[in-house]
């Protein structure tokens, strides 16, 4: 694992982010007071189930929220001396695709079907860097080589539909990295792929990170992907952070009952067959309909009165293993 000196200011610091969607029944907060940091050269995983706010968090960082339904109501997003939450659109355009790259889940819909691959990969270069066409072309070819695309000269003039899912995701990665960003946000980058192709892409992402020292935010619902690729992890539940720490801390000694439940409900290859799996009973409450107090209180087997009245804040300090649970010290097996 990479060591980062403690004194370094983080590359990205998200403070008390609140992002809300306006609906017919009023405003709902999809992200409600989320804070985390990404240190230079490290990979942060954000994990949680559908609707927990992990994708909205990512879209908030680069301000790609659906307009006008969603807006950031509060908090700060500090990235390279700039607060992205209040930045002007021109400043954001200077950063998107240049300092922050994005990799989306479904490359077939994220890539433009009517433009050639070469043109799409070169687009960020042409927008952000003052390069001649020849220079841009040679950088692009070099990048296609790096992401493991065979015969890049031919791929340049092909269209997205001519490539396989794995190849399209390699093209997405090339696009995200072409301007040498300091941060790449990957939203479920391997969810649409088969398991053997997923292994190829995860390996590629790690190689690319080792070479470039770029920071990554990896958003996924797959705890396996987090464990294999991330240094730090944020576990989200219903728009809030349930637990955060290094991958070792959170996976080896989970403190929040939700994290504990998630980790023990996954069938694994070495667990005995046809046995009852541990479950988290019930389901995530709707955003319009959040219980007061801890949002996990209707599914948690350790709920006490305090959990129904007071939301537990994250304990501890930035950089430590932190949990938002009133009772974690009692419920965590030592």
């Amino acid at each position, binding site marked *: 694992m990479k060591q980062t000196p403690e004194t370094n200011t983080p590359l990205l610091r998200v403070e008390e982010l609140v992002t809300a969607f306006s609906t017919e029944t009023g405003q709902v907060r999809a992200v409600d007071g989320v804070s985390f940091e990404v240190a230079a050269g490290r990979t942060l995983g954000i994990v949680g189930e559908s609707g927990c706010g992990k994708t909205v968090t990512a879209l908030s960082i680069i301000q790609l929220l659906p307009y006008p339904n969603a807006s950031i109501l509060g908090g700060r997003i500090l990235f390279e001396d700039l607060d992205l939450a209040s930045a002007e659109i021109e400043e954001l355009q200077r950063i998107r695709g240049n300092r922050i790259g994005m990799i989306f889940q479904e490359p077939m819909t994220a890539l433009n079907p009517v433009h050639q691959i070469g043109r799409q990969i070169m687009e960020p270069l042409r927008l952000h860097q003052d390069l001649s066409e020849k220079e841009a072309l040679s950088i692009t070819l070099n990048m296609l080589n790096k992401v493991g695309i065979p015969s890049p000269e031919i791929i340049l003039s092909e269209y997205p539909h001519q490539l396989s899912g794995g190849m399209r995701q390699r093209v997405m990665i090339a696009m995200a990295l072409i301007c040498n960003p300091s941060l790449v946000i990957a939203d479920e980058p391997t969810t649409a792929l088969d*398991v053997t192709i997923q292994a190829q892409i995860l390996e590629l992402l790690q190689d690319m990170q080792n070479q470039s020292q770029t920071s990554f935010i990896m958003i996924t619902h797959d705890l396996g992907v987090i464990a*294999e690729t991330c240094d730090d992890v944020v576990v989200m539940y219903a728009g809030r952070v349930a637990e955060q720490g290094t991958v070792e801390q959170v996976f080896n000694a989970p403190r929040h009952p939700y994290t504990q439940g998630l980790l023990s409900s996954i069938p694994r290859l070495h667990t005995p067959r046809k046995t009852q799996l541990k479950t988290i009973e019930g389901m995530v409450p709707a955003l319009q309909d959040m219980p007061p107090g801890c949002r996990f209180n209707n599914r948690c087997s350790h709920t006490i009165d305090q959990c129904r009245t007071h939301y537990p804040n994250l304990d501890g300090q930035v950089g430590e293993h932190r949990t938002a649970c009133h009772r974690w010290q009692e419920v965590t097996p030592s």
Partner: protein
Amino acid sequence: MNTPLLEVNDLKVYFPVKGGILMRAKNYNKAVDGVSIHVNAGETLGLVGESGCGKSTLGKAIVRLLKPTEGQIIFDGNDISTLSASELKPIRRDIQMIFQDPGESLNSRLTVGALIGEPFEIHNLDSPESRRRKVLELLDQVGLPANAIDRYPFEFSGGQRQRIGIARAIALEPKLIICDEPVSALDVSIQSQILNLMLNLQQKMQLSYLFVAHDLAVVKHVSDRIAIMYLGHIMEIGDADEIYRDAKHPYTRALIAAIPEPDPSRRGRTKDVLQGDVPSPIDPPTGCVFHTRCAHARPQCVAEQPSLRETASSELTSHKVACHFDL
């Protein structure tokens, strides 16, 4: 030895690929190309493979939602591979299906009560009053509240809709259920609830499952035996624990190695990542269909298609592999 509940012999399902001005079949997509499997009464056979390997097509051919091109499907002693729709109707009571996306497979205009009661209606069983009572029993069995009976599918979450789909499938007390990716659209915490339900129902009702999925960890958890499929062919089939512990086929090994495990201490392990993409089933490789991605491929693999043969190590249980070599 008992005769198996389901026996599939050398099944082929080809889809014509049309082209030219006359739209004649130019070629065939060999989705299932000579598959033989069996499912014993009360057991679960897991069927694993990546997109396009033909696993869903095989499942659909067994319930006869598709007509097989060639081969036999022997269910409960009868060959059902060529039966007409009317001849199939009584057999459909015994073979049911659970689909991947319960949002799409449930008619959104019907109430849950009507959806679960539909099988009784189709097969003309019971009076309307006793149907309603049975529907209530089924709701209870799959863990849904009784008041669900007059509500519509959209009022339910994905996990609850899958429970509705399961209630429909078990309504007529079938012998075999084909489960096509039943939990892959669900969140992890819901997935385990549904898997537990399916295991409980199997025990209570002596069900047999053909469990089709891409997630080897999930399949291994619910199955007694596992078949690994690649490009229309069975690559390996055997006892679930043995497949995991002692996989013989290089593809099975690659699949197992590729699963990201939620255990950071395993991160440093060396993985043999399978290179390349799955070839097209329209123009599959010659010989062994896996040879284009196999690290052990030799000239024989290009020339000659390996047959599914019994491995040497398995004396007690059958463990077959389609590979020329003992790797």
